[in-house]
């Protein structure tokens, strides 16, 4: 497959594609009537507020967990790129298929920059994996985590920075980051009052895409283990 191939499809295929699920005329009034009826029904049966106390506790638990995760990530990152460190091969999180091994480069060299990007990518993927693992677990237990969207947005921002960085020159890593971007974007766009079934559907999608397996195989074992030990 050629990634940069932006060549349009052949005209016959393009024409045929336009007949795929070709929409009929829009039933404007019919749909509008249904919208009005449903909104009117909701207005008439507006009930009390949900249990705000429980939600607040959950929010704080999530916040504490994510803060610990991020602090761990930053700490590990700083330790790993400490000036003067020779970057022993056993410590550096580089022994994966998606994040190729590099020898310890001298400070200020392009090789050192590349290693820093790889390290940042490994940390990000570790955080994403930990987040998605927690997310899946919370959905499985039937909880609705209100902080999930905010965390997903933070990870999404990092993901975008990495996609624009030299770290994404590795095609496999780029694919993974792009697919991860879609998942994080879905979670980020969840409504605060997102229904548990919507959350579960996202986690089902995660499994279908094999995202967790791909993340685990891309995250250096040592780093991921540290994240999990610290987070859970």
């Amino acid at each position: 497959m050629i990634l940069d191939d932006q060549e349009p499809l052949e005209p016959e295929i393009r024409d045929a594609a336009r007949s795929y699920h070709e929409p009929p005329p829009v039933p404007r009034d019919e749909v509008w009537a249904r919208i009005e009826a449903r909104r009117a029904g909701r207005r008439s049966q507006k009930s009390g507020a949900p249990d705000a106390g429980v939600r607040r506790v959950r929010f704080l638990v999530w916040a504490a967990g994510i803060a610990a995760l991020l602090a761990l990530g930053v700490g590990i990152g700083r330790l790993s790129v400490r000036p003067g460190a020779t970057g022993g091969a056993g410590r550096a999180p580089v022994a994966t298929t998606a994040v190729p091994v590099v020898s310890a480069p001298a400070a200020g060299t392009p090789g050192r920059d590349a290693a820093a990007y790889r390290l940042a990518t490994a940390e990000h993927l570790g955080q994403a994996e930990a987040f998605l693992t927690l997310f899946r677990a919370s959905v499985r237990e039937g909880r609705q985590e209100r902080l999930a969207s905010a965390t997903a947005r933070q990870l999404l921002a990092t993901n975008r920075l990495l996609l624009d960085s030299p770290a994404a020159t590795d095609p496999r890593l780029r694919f993974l980051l792009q697919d991860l971007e879609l998942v994080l974007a879905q979670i980020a766009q969840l409504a605060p009052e997102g229904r548990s079934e919507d959350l579960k559907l996202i986690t089902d999608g995660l499994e279908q895409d094999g995202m967790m397996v791909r993340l685990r195989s891309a995250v250096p074992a040592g780093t991921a283990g540290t994240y999990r030990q610290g987070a859970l």
Partner: protein
Amino acid sequence: MDDRLLIARVQAGDASAERELYDAHVERVYRLVYRIAGDADQAQDYTQETFIRTFDRLGEFRGDAALGTWICSIAVSVALNGLRRGKRLRTREVALDEAGTAAVAERASEPDLRDRLAQAIDDLPEGYRVVFLMHDVEGYTHEEIGRTLGVQTGTSKAQLSRARAKLRRSLAAFHPRTTP
């Protein structure tokens, strides 16, 4: 039409403004969710849900993107979640007979191509399928797709490229020269 003014009127409880907003965007929303779902009942359900959520969350609209793009992002989310919930796409019952009667004799193979293409599109991973439908079928730009799906333009381009490559492979029998 000034989106901000319209939104302000809706938030102030102006019922005619709600209908104006609906009329301005329903065509695009319905077409998009129909392309994704392929079923009139589901498309109506998703369109209805999209506008209910739009009115509920109008206060969250920050104006970073066009109002239409924001509404479409809700529509895509509603449609994809709805489809996953249903665990199935519409059973493929393409109206090939109708297409066949309109087609000239020389294009007798076209229904096969359409059927095969439809199956190939159904088989695309969800992300690829949505990007392909939005770009190659409905004519959205990568910038619009990026804002709608909340992804980078480059991601949209990459997903489209992969979708096309998969479709070409699936249709190699029809177009051997297109095999990547």
